């Protein structure tokens, strides 16, 4: 094992050289330390004691929301919060009571906020009070020397101009919750933090990504009292540090017409009606108006909800957080009859001339089906059956029809499936089939159930939006649209980034006579004195439509003809109405639903009338005037007819007496 001594000795020189290299290397380190600690030591020491650089998040301003007629619906307003940074809180015994006094809060409340943020890092500011008044801001600013650690943070809050009106449609933003944080981080690939505001409802949620923008950060110098100011270059120390500006969110223009929205909303809230309405452009499927009542004030959410306001929303039995246009579905009642008529006409069960006696009851086996009015005994065609909303006619028709056939035609019009509007939490509605019932109840379909479905009761459920889409399809003779709520996305410099075009989901092919007969029936509903909507025909609207009354609970026989208004509120029927206008060249379709409104004609139709009337006034005033003249002539004609008939019966009676 000996003999390597020489080899090692011959390497001794290199070992020494390595030693020198090591020394030289550390010489460099020591020189650098000398430069930092001795040469620039005073500057850097000053800096570390007096001022500190802090990296702060800069949130992007959220995009605005406009109506189709250019009215600003959702705006951003500055808001000021009082914040506290514990690191700079020098004497809490004096500062905190003083602060509580200025902000008008109790020491207990203040202490509770401090306790809540106990585990936050000491250098991180947290909010003491949101939305300060001008007086509070002035007080804090002037007393800043005796309030070390307290400062004011500017913050942008969301302002919804119309408050409750259209709140469900616009939605709201609020702070991301602890549960949402990991889920949304994964979903969007955005590193959300607590304190970030995201869209939680309506358009704000649907287009959150578009509206939100991208947050940036900036470096601020923090002085010894924890107050930030923009950094100044100290000796080029921060030469290397650059802010990353935030990218503001894009704005959007909705398809909503603000005037129509107001017109319908006023009709809806006038009698504190609970319900909603939606107006669609028949030719494009664009949503022109959409309101649900009761609602909430979305501005409250972005300001940080008070617990009182939140509990008042949650505990309200009228459920103001629900969007009744898309989140709730109801029995469509008689508004469903046109679809039964279409199925019967297309399948050849009836034609335009088929006459059926419309009397009080219809028997199927042992079961008795009632008409909606006790009296009446005349023979009617499908057109008049729609006009008078004769239940017996449709019972008769349905007794010869299979439920699956009815379902086939109904589904074509978009009932029973989501419209694709894109707003969150939309319901599907329900169009029953044999298979569906067997699966759900394990019981075969009963023939009697088809009868109930034919007049829109029983299992059939539709949202107000679905009814509007289906009637728009009747109005335009076959085009079922995917409703649109966003017209365009507008960039920060005002240019249009994205435009949304109409989308036809389905084109329904029916016999031309079928369209004609059904539309004629709907026309007569409004424009014939015998029609159920005669009193809501409006002035110069040339409207076609259908009233509907949805039973809430199946009534016992003795209650069937009891006046709805006399019933307890919860047992009253829902009133439904769907209409479109003008008849010759339909442009707008409106559906409205009023919970426990008793009748479609008296509760829901006035809302539709108001919206359509506004539409005609705004977009086709000449046609409206012409229609008014036509209507007057028609009215005179009916009066004459009435007179003649009256005379006739008087003569007959006189003759009989003779």
């Amino acid at each position, binding site marked *: *094992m*000996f003999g*390597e*001594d*020489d*080899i*090692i*000795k*011959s*390497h*001794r020189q*290199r*070992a*020494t*050289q*390595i*030693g020198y290299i*090591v*020394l030289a*290397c*550390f010489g*460099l*380190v*020591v020189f*650098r*330390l*000398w430069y*930092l*600690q*001795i040469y*620039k*030591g*005073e*500057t*850097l*020491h000053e*800096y*570390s*004691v007096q001022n*500190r*650089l802090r*990296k702060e998040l800069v949130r992007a301003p959220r995009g605005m929301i406009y109506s189709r007629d250019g009215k600003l619906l959702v705006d951003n307003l500055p808001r000021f919060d009082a914040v506290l940074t514990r*690191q700079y809180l020098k004497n809490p015994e004096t500062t905190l009571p003083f602060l509580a006094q200025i902000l008008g809060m109790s020491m207990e409340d203040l202490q509770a906020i401090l306790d809540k943020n106990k*585990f936050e*890092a*000491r*250098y991180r500011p947290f909010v003491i009070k949101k939305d300060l008044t001008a007086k509070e801001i002035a007080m804090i600013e002037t007393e800043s020397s005796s309030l070390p650690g307290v400062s004011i943070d500017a913050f942008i809050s969301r302002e919804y101009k119309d408050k409750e009106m259209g709140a469900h449609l616009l939605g709201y933003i609020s702070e991301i919750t602890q549960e949402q944080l990991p889920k949304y981080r994964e979903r969007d690939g955005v590193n959300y933090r607590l304190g970030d505001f995201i869209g939680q409802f309506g358009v704000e949620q649907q287009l959150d990504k578009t509206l939100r923008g991208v947050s940036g950060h900036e*470096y601020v110098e923090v002085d010894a009292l924890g107050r930030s100011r923009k950094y100044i270059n100290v000796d080029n*120390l*921060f*030469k*290397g*540090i*650059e802010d*990353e500006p935030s990218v503001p969110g894009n704005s959007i223009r909705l398809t909503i017409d603000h005037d129509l929205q107001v017109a319908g909303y006023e009709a809806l809230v006038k009698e504190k009606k609970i319900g909603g309405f939606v107006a669609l452009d028949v030719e494009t499927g664009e949503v022109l108006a959409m309101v649900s009542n009761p609602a909430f004030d979305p501005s409250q959410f972005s300001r940080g909800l008070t617990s009182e306001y939140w509990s008042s929303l949650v505990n309200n039995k009228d459920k103001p957080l629900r969007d009744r246009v898309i989140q709730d579905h109801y029995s469509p009642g008689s508004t469903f009859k046109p679809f039964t008529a279409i199925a019967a006409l297309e399948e050849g069960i009836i034609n335009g001339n088929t006459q059926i006696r419309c009397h009080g009851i219809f028997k199927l086996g042992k079961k008795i089906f009632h008409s909606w009015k006790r009296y009446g005994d005349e023979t009617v065609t499908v057109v008049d059956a729609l006009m008078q909303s004769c239940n017996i006619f449709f019972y008769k028709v349905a007794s010869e029809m299979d439920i699956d056939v009815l379902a086939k035609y109904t589904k074509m019009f978009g009932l029973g499936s989501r419209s694709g509007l894109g707003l969150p939490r939309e319901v599907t509605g329900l169009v029953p089939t044999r298979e569906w019932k067997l699966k759900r109840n394990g019981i075969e379909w009963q023939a009697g159930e088809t009868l109930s479905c034919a007049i829109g009761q029983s299992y059939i459920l539709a949202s107000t939006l679905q009814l509007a889409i289906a009637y728009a399809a009747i109005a335009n003779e076959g085009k079922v649209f995917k409703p649109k709520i966003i017209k365009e996305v507008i960039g920060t410099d005002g240019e249009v980034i994205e435009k949304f075009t109409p989308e036809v989901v389905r084109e329904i092919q029916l016999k031309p006579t079928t369209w004609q007969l059904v539309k004629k029936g709907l026309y007569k509903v409004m424009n014939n004195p015998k029609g159920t909507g005669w009193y809501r025909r409006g002035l110069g609207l040339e409207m076609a439509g259908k009233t509907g009354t949805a039973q809430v609970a199946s009534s016992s026989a003795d209650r069937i003809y009891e006046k709805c208004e006399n019933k307890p509120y919860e047992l009253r029927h829902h009133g439904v109405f769907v209409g479109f206008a003008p008849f010759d060249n339909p442009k707008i379709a409106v559906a409205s639903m009023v919970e426990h409104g008793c009748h479609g004609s008296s509760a829901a139709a006035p809302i539709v009338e108001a919206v359509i009337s506004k539409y005609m006034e705004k977009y086709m005033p000449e046609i409206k005037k012409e229609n008014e003249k036509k209507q007057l002539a028609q009215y005179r004609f009916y009066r004459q007819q009435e007179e003649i008939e009256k005379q006739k019966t008087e003569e007959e009676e006189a003759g009989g007496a003779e």
Partner: protein
Amino acid sequence: MFNDTMDTFKRYDYTFFGGMFAIFAIGVTNLYSATHADRAGLQELYMYQAVWFCIALSVGFALSFISSKTFFRYSYIIFIGNVFLLVLVLLLGKIGMGAQRWLAIGPFRLQPSELMKISTVLALSRWFARSGPDRELTIKELLVPLLIVMVPAVLVIVQPDLGTGMLLILILAVMVFYRKLSWKSIWIIVVIAIMCGGVMYKYGLKEYQRKRIITFIDPHADAKGSGYNAIQSEIAIGSGRLLGKGYMKSSQGALAFLPENHTDFVFSIFNEEHGFIGALFLISLYLILFFRYIWLATSVQHFFESVATIGFMAIIFWHTFINMCMVTGLMPVVGIPLPMMSYGGSSMLTFGIVTGIATSFSNSKNLF
């Protein structure tokens, strides 16, 4: 028998463990200061560090009783085994949840890349000891050592752990220099290395790795904040001035202006609290240790031991030097810990093993 044991302890060289302990003692008190203000979870780090030191010391002490012949005999097997572990880490990372650097063995997480530094030094030493160590090294003879280093280096770099990969190459450089590579060859290699570096930078680096280098050269190009870390570190060091702010008085670190203040940036905290004088003292301790290793390399009896000792010295030296350059702003932040000071079990174990083997070499020299 009793005399034998007594003899063993009489000729036992305590200096290596002594030096390691001295630096560890400074490190653990510094760690306590760096983390005492942190939120729950990090405050107990100094305890874990002490536990790791005890483990490292035990392993090192046990290894110091193994003869250098054994290390020589098994050096290739250890090397191949370690490379196998690196491959295993890569495969498990592929199957599992993305990139990993460690293997879980019971409650421990072992980083094979840490041990790879030692295995590579042993394998290289055996090769150098057997390939005519009496002559000057020619460029041709570099082929095998280069292969020995590049296999683990590539495996480590794709983990991706660029820092450790580069470290392996730097260790080889020191050993090759010691093995008397002619100056002419050295210059040729330096030129080639610069050229290769350019190509590597262009094609071989990941985006974030390239960013680190860009940040260093031009801090304006940085938007994500690594420049921010470097500047905060410089403020911390500079604010210590000559004598420092005093123990536990660091403000930059304690207020979490400094990220990673318990791993990569412990030296900044130390400087802030103990100033220029403190830094000189700490650097002197490291230098004493390095010169002890160099002395050992020239006084052992076998060339294998000699080269290996230089390799070990290189491991500790590069860690120390790169880390200090990094936190003082002389080099981009590459995530190399400061030996015996930074928190970290695997790296502590590595230095324990190095110290143990070096002690074994030193003891065997006194056998006669």
